[in-house]
């Protein structure tokens, strides 16, 4: 089976007052048809910029995709014209963003925002588009869809708006949905509803899903594969089970050890990742995690470790000491 999405050596830079920021610095990964892949990282790790690069939604200036290939169903998206790209966005690739209030247009009815997509991409007539909109709202679990279609975003709750976003993303039966922190702004009971809905629908409709999140629990519940990012680079990649039970990068290990967990006895004290997040304008040629790393050795200052196999097949880590880390327990 060939990959649906194949990101190869992607580089995205921003020119800022403080200097050049390599927000995405040579990232490669694949997403298979129907697969759910999580991209995990903290603010500034490049996880959102990476996803926006796939859709070519990087504001230029100051941003620029400087290198790489983004093969989607065999076509390089970086080689498409602006018009061709517009036909991909919202049509072949759907998007769900974090803040449903700011990503829906406040002056258009819900119905208009769904039918617009259909008329634009599919050339559907008004009646067909209206019928499909009702169908879509029912699909995402909204009761009384006819009435909701005539309402405006501010008349709906946060959870409801996110359901609308998912409906919009599904409108043209895309093959891939990119969800950037889709539930971060939502309460925990609503978060659970939305995630169940998204994963249920993508499984049923065989849509691939990229979930970008910082929540390690969400990843564990919903993702098949996990990509961990730090300072613009992929530092670990593998199946969720491997990455969580046998992490091979010190950053992943430290993250997993630092969170308080409901499934374990209460700890006397948390074991935090020491130090501060990296300043992306001041990275050197070495490993960016080195200043905070308990495993750092001299070699880590000299060059950046490449993403290489660690442990099971398909499990990759960008650390010189990836084999030694296997001996460290995940529980603090």
């Amino acid at each position, binding site marked *: 089976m060939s990959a649906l999405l194949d990101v190869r050596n992607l580089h995205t830079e921003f020119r800022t007052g403080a200097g050049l920021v390599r927000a995405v610095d040579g990232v490669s990964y694949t997403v298979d048809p129907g697969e759910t892949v999580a991209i995990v990282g*903290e*603010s500034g790790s490049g996880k959102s910029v990476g996803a926006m690069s796939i859709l070519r939604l990087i504001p230029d200036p100051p941003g620029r995709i400087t290198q790489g290939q983004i093969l989607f169903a065999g076509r390089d998206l970086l080689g498409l014209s602006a018009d061709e790209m517009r036909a991909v966005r919202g049509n072949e690739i759907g998007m769900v963003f974090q803040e449903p209030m700011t990503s829906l247009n406040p002056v258009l009815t819900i119905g208009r925002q769904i039918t617009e997509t259909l008329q634009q991409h599919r050339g559907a007539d008004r009646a067909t588009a209206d019928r499909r909109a009702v169908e879509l709202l029912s699909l995402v679990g909204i009761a009384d869809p006819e009435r909701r279609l005539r309402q405006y975003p501010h008349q709906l*709750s946060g*959870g*409801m708006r996110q359901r609308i976003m998912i409906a919009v993303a599904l409108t043209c039966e895309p093959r891939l949905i990119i969800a950037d922190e889709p539930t971060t702004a939502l*309460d*925990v*009971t*609503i*978060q*659970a*509803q939305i995630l*169940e809905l998204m994963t249920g629908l993508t499984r049923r409709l065989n849509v691939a899903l990229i979930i970008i999140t*910082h*929540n*390690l*629990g*969400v*990843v*564990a*519940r*919903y993702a098949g594969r996990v990509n961990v990012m730090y300072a613009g680079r992929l530092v670990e990649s593998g199946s*969720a*089970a491997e990455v*969580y*039970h046998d992490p091979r990068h010190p950053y992943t290990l*430290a*993250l*997993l050890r*630092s*969170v*308080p*967990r*409901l*499934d374990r006895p*209460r*700890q006397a*004290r*948390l*074991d*935090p*990742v*020491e130090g*501060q*997040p990296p300043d992306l304008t001041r990275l050197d040629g070495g490993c960016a995690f080195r200043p*905070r790393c308990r495993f750092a050795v001299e070699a880590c200052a000299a060059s950046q470790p490449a993403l290489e196999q660690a442990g099971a097949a398909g499990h990759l880590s960008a650390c010189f000491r990836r084999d030694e880390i296997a001996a460290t327990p995940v529980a603090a």
Partner: protein
Amino acid sequence: MSEARPLLEVRDLHMHFPISEGVLMRRQIGEVKAVDGIHFSVRRGETLGLVGESGCGKTTTGRCILQLEQPTSGTILYDGIDINTLSRREQLALRRRIQVIFQDPYSSLNPRMKVGDIIGEPIQVHGLAPDAARRIARVRELLSVCGLDPTFADRYPHEMSGGQRQRVGIARALALEPEFIVCDEAVSALDVSIQAQVINLLEDLRERFGLTYLFIAHDLSVVRHLCQRVAVMYLGRIVELADCDALFDDPLHPYTRALLAAVPVPDPTIEAGRAFQPVRGEVPSPINPPAGCVFHPRCTMAVESCRRSRPELRELRPGHWVACSEVN
């Protein structure tokens, strides 16, 4: 309640916000019952967690205790004194003893002030340092207590990371040597790798200065780690209050159970083996809350009587209070 008098006691607190309509002729058309009759107390030296989803009234409760809101009715006793009967001078003195740490370290620090002035201002307002030199020395001491380099006093907030800013917010709260700190989502905005650092700092400070915290948060795993007792709020009311271990190991209220079940744990094997049914529906509007038990429209255990009568908090196990008529 045991022997010692609690440091803070909240009795039948109500905070209703009016909703008005009309431009020239303003008239009240309803009210939001943000807090609708809650009781709890915080013992000296303990951390009480106040959890719930947005709109449940947890932040409003904190603001009433901080005297940032004038409650509609009810009593807040701090160290035995009703805080709403105080004169302005007495109020000012009380503010020294009760401080706050806010959620967002970006909007809660004045971007035009240097860190040293942000922390030094309360010291100056309350006349705690006789001269500038002493004040600066105190600011530097507070910075290092909070794990920051004393030279940060000369920086502006924008020169610091989120975690460092939150440490500045904590140093500012400590500047007046308070006894009681309201932590309102104090670690929620921080990155995962920084959150644990700040949680550890809060614990160290509690021990070192004998602080008492009201820890308002929505992240249940953080609350479990930090708190001795926990109160769960839903739509302006407390639905369950218990010792931390009792609440997490043996939750009794259906809402608490639903809330705990909704939290995914970072372990794919556990998650794969869990039959998971998210709680249905959404939080109803606090303008027009459901009659009877406010949770009944979403509750799997609800029976006919839940639609009519509002259950009061009952002590079902020693120290374990639950507002549900269907659990025993």
